[in-house]
């Protein structure tokens, strides 16, 4: 299933699952990611699944590229998947103060605000990966009518809870961070909770997310 394994520097494996970025390729990545994680292979210290790649970093004091490559090539990935995707609802408020880039999107997409929301909310999005900043989910695929490029100049500070769109994906800024995605709203829900040691992430790769629009009243009084 892995198309090619090469080395990324001297302490990581670069597993390429193909150039196509779609659910099918990504599901393979996630399957491998879960299998490798479950096997707890000696020397592996980090796994980073993304759209079509899996990066496996290891401790060069304990092992080396060839050894880990062999173990990954001989890994049986079919016996270990029993996790069902979670379905998670994320409420979003889209008042002007939160929908920072709605005007830009109206222009770029030639769509009215209401139509943008209609095409975005109440649909199932698949989580391809999490990361960049802690817990940020990369969700897809957006309706073709909603696909826009990143901002020409990224914001220095995107507020915590902002929901952004870029190309075929949506994300959520789990805390204030720089960023260049088109912000359409803000969620009161905690997407990343660092006080939880076990599962700080609300959304994990392979999960399904549905965005629901809420009023400012409900946003203010939101209680998990």
């Amino acid at each position, binding site marked *: 299933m892995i198309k090619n394994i090469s080395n990324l520097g*001297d302490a*990581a494996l670069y597993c390429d699952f193909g150039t196509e970025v779609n659910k099918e390729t990504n599901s393979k990545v996630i399957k491998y990611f879960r299998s490798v994680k479950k096997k707890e292979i000696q020397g592996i210290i980090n*796994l*980073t699944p993304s759209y079509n790649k899996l990066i496996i970093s290891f401790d060069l004091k304990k092992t080396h590229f060839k050894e880990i490559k062999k173990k990954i090539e001989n890994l049986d990935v079919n016996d270990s998947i029993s996790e069902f995707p979670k379905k998670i609802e994320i409420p979003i408020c889209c008042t002007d103060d939160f929908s920072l880039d709605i005007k830009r999107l109206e222009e770029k997409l030639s769509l009215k605000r209401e139509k943008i929301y209609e095409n975005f909310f109440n649909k199932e999005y698949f989580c391809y*990966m999490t*990361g960049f900043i802690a*817990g940020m989910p990369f969700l897809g695929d957006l309706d073709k009518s909603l696909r826009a490029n990143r901002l020409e100049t990224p914001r220095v500070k995107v507020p915590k809870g902002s929901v952004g769109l870029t190309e075929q994906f949506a994300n959520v800024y789990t805390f204030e961070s720089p960023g260049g995605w088109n912000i359409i709203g803000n969620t009161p829900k905690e997407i990343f909770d*660092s006080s939880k040691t076990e599962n700080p*992430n609300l959304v994990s790769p392979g999960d399904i997310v549905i965005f629901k629009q809420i009023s400012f009243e409900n946003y203010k009084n939101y209680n998990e």
Partner: protein
Amino acid sequence: MNSFFEIIRAGINTTFQDEGRNNLYHIGIPFSGAMDKRNYLLSNSLLGNKINKPVIEFAYQGPLIKYRGEKISFVITGDVIFKIIKKEKEIQGNCYENYIIEDGDQIDVISTNKSVYGYLAINGEFNLKFQWGSCSVNTKANIGSNNGKKLGDNQKLDILNINSNQVKKKLNYINTRIERIRVIKGTNFNYFSDEGKKIFFNKEFTVSKLSDRMGMRLEGQKIENIVDTNIRSEGLIKGVIQVPADGNPIIMLSDHGTIGGYPKIGVVISSDYDKLVQLSPGSKIKFQEIELSDAETLFKLYEMETQNLISQLK
């Protein structure tokens, strides 16, 4: 008697660090930990501590600390200028040599010398809350001890379990600087023009002021991309050299974002990482290509050297 550090002046970027945390890249949390691992390990070894105990890491200017409590030993590693201020005298401090201080003494970590990071360890324990098994502070994500923040002025740091068995230890060690950073070709090496590749491996780059624990930005001749200045976002590791559209390389350091979308021209080898992070803004560097098998051998040698230094202190 309660023992504690009173931080009179915190310094520029003073944080708690240890070995860092593993197995969290997939949720977006980087490795973190002490930037210069060797100097971190040596600081604990010089006090007879367990090797992975939390220490104070500082960059450029360090803290000015007033000590309150029973006698304690401390040590500073790196290339650091500091002094110990006692009631009746001031002592010019030497790195890699432990000192005993007592109630009312002060440690003034004036600055790192032509380097970036230094370490202060004690033969007691800072009273810290760990997060995912590590105290390491990542100020961008607010993860780690001290609520994920750098130390601030007038802060008080409680110290517990001071080891009364205080043995004088000293190490003759000089931090060598390197100008050549050895690099394995990256997964997008062929995105760059022949001219761009030549520039990367032959020309000098300058470390920019915009460098921190997340990344080191370099300035020099632009490296031309002939394929695409973006790739599908994918995982990063420390040492990866990304080249964004502006043609200036950025090296990922210990607090890096876990995912990135710029082409990877190379990866700094593990044995050169400690020396790389010590290059201060304005330093000149050149990259040198190296094969994987040689990088593995160099790492073994570097590790052996570190272990030899540690065993000298046992």
